[in-house]
Each structure stands twice: as structure tokens, then as C-alpha cells.
């Protein structure tokens, strides 16, 4: 028996504004994801490199000059985001791919859009639901690393630490925005989450392998050639943010363009699915 004994009747309580649906959708999806044991394990695994990098920071103080490694430069964060990129690629295939595809399969669209839920809220809610675990494996460990770096350094000012935190946030937003928008568009294009996930990983790896072959064949290290690979574009952006390497500018522009295009295409796609489900 339920704990509530009241009989069904009319409702005259408060109603939250439409914009709150973004959080409702995101929260429900994140709860659904975290209810799965393997998702929790995957996120925990993503912290392993962080622990390793924190150890590098500590020991880097000892072997700093001998190894030519500066533990207080941005290199440590470049390494962190590079490993996080691979975890994010796997996470997108594992659960980002199902985010819209499952709603298409279970015909859930009328359940959303016959309620006071706008397409904007639906898309932003889903994006936020993917972005949360992505930020969990990029932003959160990055911040922990920054705190470790600040705690170990004797002469690192709060201003420098603040700038580092801002850079970490910037890199996390680029990674989360790009990955979640692309995977959400791909998810909206298919009905099988498995095929969408394999398609995403295939695209990610195929472009990277093709890039490697072209680079070896041409024997050049051009930033424009880097645009062939999604992975390399992200790496170039990390170099731009943490090392000030201006070769990353074309990659940043390219990633922003891809994200913007995918966001626009996603909106069109959701409108089409919603019209089909009427």
C-alpha cells in the first residue's frame, strides 16, 4: 500500500516556470545514468589518470630539473585533458548515443511535447544531462589538480591559480559543448543507440587514423591538417589554452563551427521528429 491515503482530485498547488524543465530533464537523465553501475565505474575510472598526474606533480618537484618537467606550467593540464578526451569519447558512445534515440524508440515525444515543454528546454535539458558526466571527468579532476598544484607550490599566487581555474573551465566547456552537441545530433538521427555509439567511435577513430596517415605521408605538421582529426583539434585547443600555442586557433574556430552547426541541425531534427510523432 502506498503511504499516501488521499484520493485523486484537482491540483491547485504551485506551478514552476517553463524554463525549469531544463533542470527537470537534466536531473532525471543524470539520475537514470548514475543508477547504472557501469556508468559510475566508468566515471570513477576516469579519475585514475588524475591520481597519476597528482603524483607526477609531487614527484616533479623532486626531479624537476633533471627531467626538464615544470610541474607549475600548464603541461599537467594538457595531459589531463588529453586523457579526459578519450574517456569522454567512450562515454559518448556508451550513454550519450541513447539520449534521444531511446525517446524515438519508446515514442516518448508526445509525452514531452503535449506538456508545457518547449523544444529549447528539451534540447538544453538533454545537453546538460550529457555535459554533467563530461564535466565530471574533465572539470572536476582538473580543478582537483589545480588545487593540488596550488597547495604544493610555495610561490604560486592566488591570481595565477585563478587564471588556471578559468583555463580549466574554458577547456572543459569546449570539450563538453562539442562532444555533447555532436553526440546528441547523432543520437537524434538513429533509433539504435548501439549503432549510434559505434558510429560515433568509428568517426572519431577513423578521422584520427586518416589524419595520422596523411601527416606521415606529407611529412608536415600544419595546423590546417590537424583539422582532419577531431581528437587532434581538441588537443590543439588544449595547447592553445594552457601553453599559449597560437596554432590551436584554427582548431578552436573549427570546433566552435562544428558545435554551432550541430546545434542548429539538432534543432531542425527535433522539430522534424516532433512533427512526425504528432
Amino acid at each position, binding site marked *: 500500500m502506498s503511504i*499516501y491515503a488521499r484520493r485523486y482530485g484537482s491540483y491547485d498547488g504551485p506551478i514552476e516556470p517553463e524554463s525549469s524543465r531544463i533542470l527537470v530533464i537534466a536531473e532525471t537523465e543524470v539520475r537514470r545514468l548514475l543508477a547504472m553501475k557501469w556508468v559510475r565505474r566508468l566515471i570513477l575510472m576516469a579519475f585514475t589518470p588524475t591520481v597519476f598526474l597528482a603524483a607526477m606533480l609531487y614527484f616533479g618537484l623532486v626531479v624537476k630539473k633533471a627531467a626538464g618537467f615544470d610541474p607549475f606550467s600548464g603541461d599537467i593540464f594538457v595531459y589531463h585533458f588529453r586523457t579526459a578526451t578519450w574517456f569522454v569519447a567512450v562515454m559518448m558512445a556508451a550513454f550519450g548515443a541513447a539520449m534521444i534515440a531511446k525517446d524515438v524508440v*519508446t515514442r516518448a515525444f508526445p509525452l514531452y511535447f503535449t506538456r508545457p515543454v518547449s523544444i529549447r528546454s528539451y534540447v538544453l535539458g538533454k545537453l546538460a544531462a550529457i555535459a554533467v558526466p563530461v564535466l565530471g571527468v574533465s572539470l572536476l579532476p582538473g580543478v582537483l589538480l589545480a588545487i593540488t598544484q596550488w597547495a604544493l607550490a610555495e610561490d604560486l599566487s592566488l591570481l595565477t591559480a585563478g587564471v588556471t581555474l578559468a583555463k580549466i573551465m574554458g577547456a572543459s566547456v569546449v570539450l563538453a559543448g562539442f562532444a555533447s552537441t555532436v553526440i546528441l545530433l547523432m543520437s537524434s538521427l538513429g533509433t539504435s543507440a548501439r549503432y549510434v555509439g559505434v558510429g560515433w567511435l568509428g568517426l572519431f577513430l577513423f578521422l584520427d587514423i586518416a589524419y595520422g596517415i596523411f601527416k606521415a605521408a606529407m611529412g608536415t605538421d600544419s595546423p590546417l591538417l590537424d583539422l582532419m582529426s577531431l581528437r587532434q583539434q581538441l588537443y590543439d585547443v588544449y595547447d592553445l589554452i594552457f601553453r599559449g600555442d597560437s596554432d590551436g586557433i584554427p582548431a578552436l574556430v573549427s570546433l566552435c563551427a562544428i558545435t554551432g552547426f550541430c546545434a542548429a541541425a539538432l534543432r531542425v531534427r527535433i522539430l522534424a521528429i516532433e512533427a512526425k510523432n504528432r
Partner: protein
Amino acid sequence: MLFELQGINQHYGAFQALTDVTVAVRPGVVGLLGPNGSGKSTLIKTLLGMLEPTSGHGKVLGQDVRSQSLAIRERVGYMPEHDAYFADLTGFESVVYAARLSGLPRRHAFRRAHEVLDYVGMEEARYREVQGYSTGMRQRIKLAQALVHGPQLVFLDEPTNGLDPKGREEMLGLIGDLGRIPVNVLLSSHVLHDVEAVCDAVLLLQGGQVKHYGPLRDLLTTKGGEYELQVRTGGPQLSQALTTAGFQVATPNPLDLDRLVVVIPSEEAIDALWAAVIALDLQVRHFAPLTVSLERAFVDLVEPGAHA
């Protein structure tokens, strides 16, 4: 008024789904009838604000269908015809999610979900995932999702689809009960028995146009002044006497000659009928306006002359 439509036209490219729909529907449990392709689903989606009318004006619960669609959706519920559910959620979680999508704060959503699940008869099964539910349980969950936010008007699209006779009766009982809460209902169904069982008014569409709107009893009562007259004995003699008195009399069942159908053209003519009955000293067992089944009324409206 529940909803008022004025000259609503709805086009899908070259196809015209609704043509000059003008109707003002009063509160209650209203049946939405019509042959396949008559525009029932299009009408519901227009009322929900999901489709903007090509032309015309409309208001649902006083809100404009063009400019206030989100406000309309806060106050109405919709139970889709097809199987539709949120993946990986239990029945209870699905109803809470539906409530929160309608704007209820978390605490209210939890309380309302339990209340509405009790109402639709979902007990412990509410804590199981919806994927594992039977058709009947899924229909109940869809009804609970449509009702959880306390809508003033609920659109039910074929709510008894796929239900066994017991489940169908229970679902009809719930729908009938909604009218007493009161929640207004627009029930779209191909099963005329369902409409006859729970509705107090009927909106009939054909070819995208309103063919009939009014109380169900008006539809079931013949318009030609036909009355059913049952006497204990002496039916043939009464039939002859009434015919002589100028009435049109028929015996619909040749095996029951004491049951007559008499056309009474005016109120005054009833006195002449009683005079004939008294003159023959007959015992009258039943006298009432002739009613027809909803099936026959439906066919008569959709295909005039089909029963001629």
C-alpha cells in the same frame, strides 16, 4: 465552454484535414467520433496547440490555441493512442517525471503521483520498470501521466485499445468517474459502446467537418416523432385502430406483435393514441420515444439512407 472553434481550417500541404470547423463544446465527458481520416487526431493536436491552424480562431479553456499553447498544455492532459513511455523508468518515476514536466515542484509531484497511481489501480507494480508492463498496465500508466498534474480537460485517444473485457470495463469506470471529480474529458474512440457507456455528449467529425455535436441522448432519440409502445396483449387490434385513426404504425419484430412503433406527429395526437388504447381496454407496459443504438445513429449520420 470547454473549447470554442471558429472557422478552423487545417492543411497538410495539399490535403485539407479540417474544413471550417466551428463548434462550442460544453463541459462534461464528450465523445469524439468519426470514420478513419475524419480529422479526429488533427483536431486534438490543434486543441493541444501542437498544430497551428492554417486559418480560423480557437480557444481551449479560454486560452488562444495560436498564442497560448503552453498555457493550454498546463491545464490539459493527453493520453496518446500508441504505446509511449519514458525508457528505463519505473511506473512511479514516469508519473513523477510527467508531473514535473508539467511544472509541479518535486514534493507535490511525488504526492500527486501516489494519489493518481492509487486512483488508476496501480499498486506495487508502480515500482517496476514500464518496459515490463502488460498492455493494460501501460494504459493505466498513460492515464496516470495524463492526470497527474490535475488537468481541467483530458484528451483520451483510444484509451481501451488492447484491453481485455475486464480491463476495458475498469478503464471505462475510471473515465466515467473523472466526470464526477470533475475532470472534463474528450474521448476519441472507434468503439462506440465505450462512448455510449461514459459520454454525455458527442462530437462527430466526417471529412474534416463537424457533422454533429450535442447531447448523446439527442443522437440516440429518433427525430421523426417515433414512439415505442408495448402492450400486454392485443397488439394487432391496436395497430389496426391506430392506423384507422391516421397514425403510421409499424411492427418491428414479427415475433412480437404486441410491440409497436408509432409515429406521433404532434403532442395533441398523443390524446388520440390513448383514446384508442382505452377503447380497446389494453394494458400498456411501455411507452417512450424510440431510441436507437449509437452504431445506427453513427451510420445514419455518416451514411444517410444506409438503413432506409
